[in-house]
């Protein structure tokens, strides 16, 4: 465990933010608030990405997730004007307890595993600017990941078609 460095401080704050608002997202009664708290969590994740030497991903995180997807959510929520989530009191108690237990246990178990598992040595090359990360991604996209990329395009097409189809009111 290295000495208290700025990186560590930032990490701590970010993780508190992320986890805290994630919890908030779960505990919130109104969907809108859930979405908004998730936004914060995503920002936390974006910070992590930067720390993990993936600034481009961080940007995507903010743009696509916080930006696009969550806004889409908000939009739908407004569309269906789901102001209030039904009160949880009448909900199914067993489901709640067991669900809580399951989540907790799984979280505990997995993080326990994460801590106990032996860590492979991370590479520690000489310090160079991150400048050539994005070109690298680009290059990879059009070489090794070409097929995946193409497939992705069709996937998005399908998504578009499907969304369009489902949200159409009448058949013709």
């Amino acid at each position, binding site marked *: 465990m*290295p000495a208290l460095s700025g990186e*560590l401080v930032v*990490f701590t704050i970010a*993780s508190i933010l992320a*986890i805290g608002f*994630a919890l908030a*997202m*779960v505990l919130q009664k109104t969907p809108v608030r*859930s979405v908004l708290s*998730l936004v914060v969590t995503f920002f936390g994740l974006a910070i*992590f990405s930067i720390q*993990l*030497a*993936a600034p*481009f*991903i961080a940007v*995507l*995180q903010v743009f*696509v*997730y916080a930006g696009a*997807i969550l806004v*889409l*959510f908000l939009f*739908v929520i407004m569309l*269906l004007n789901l102001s209030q989530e*039904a009160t*949880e009191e009448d909900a*199914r108690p067993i*489901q709640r307890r*067991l*669900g809580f237990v*399951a*989540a*907790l246990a*799984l*979280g505990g178990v*997995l*993080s326990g595993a*994460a*801590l106990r598992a032996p860590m492979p040595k*991370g*590479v520690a*090359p*000489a*310090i160079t600017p991150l400048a*050539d990360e994005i070109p*690298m*991604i680009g290059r*990879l996209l059009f070489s090794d*990941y070409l097929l*995946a990329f193409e497939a*992705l395009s069709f*996937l*998005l097409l399908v*998504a578009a078609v499907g*969304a*369009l*189809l*489902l*949200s159409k009111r009448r058949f013709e």
Partner: protein
Amino acid sequence: MTGALPGVAPMAVPPGAYLVVGTLLFAIGLAGTLLKRNALSIFLSIELMMNAVNLLFLTYARMRGDMAGQMIVFFVIAIAAAEASVGLAIFVALFRVRRTVDVDEIALLKW
């Protein structure tokens, strides 16, 4: 697939910490999935789970100094977007018919 991570400083924060955070977020997302009643909230939680996994990917990529992890995350984000659009469309269609997205009230098909 190859593609080494461009050299960066050694990690000041132990990777385990990132993993734990990621796992916890995953668990929280799961909790949301299991505890929320609003279909959207549930899907929201699932999105959270995916992001938690993304964090794991990034961490591992960083640990191994390997691009692959980042690439995967890139794709996952895109896929998540696609899923979101379809999913929300389904919610809308459902709402049109049933006037609700409360999963506890959506149980015509059972047993």
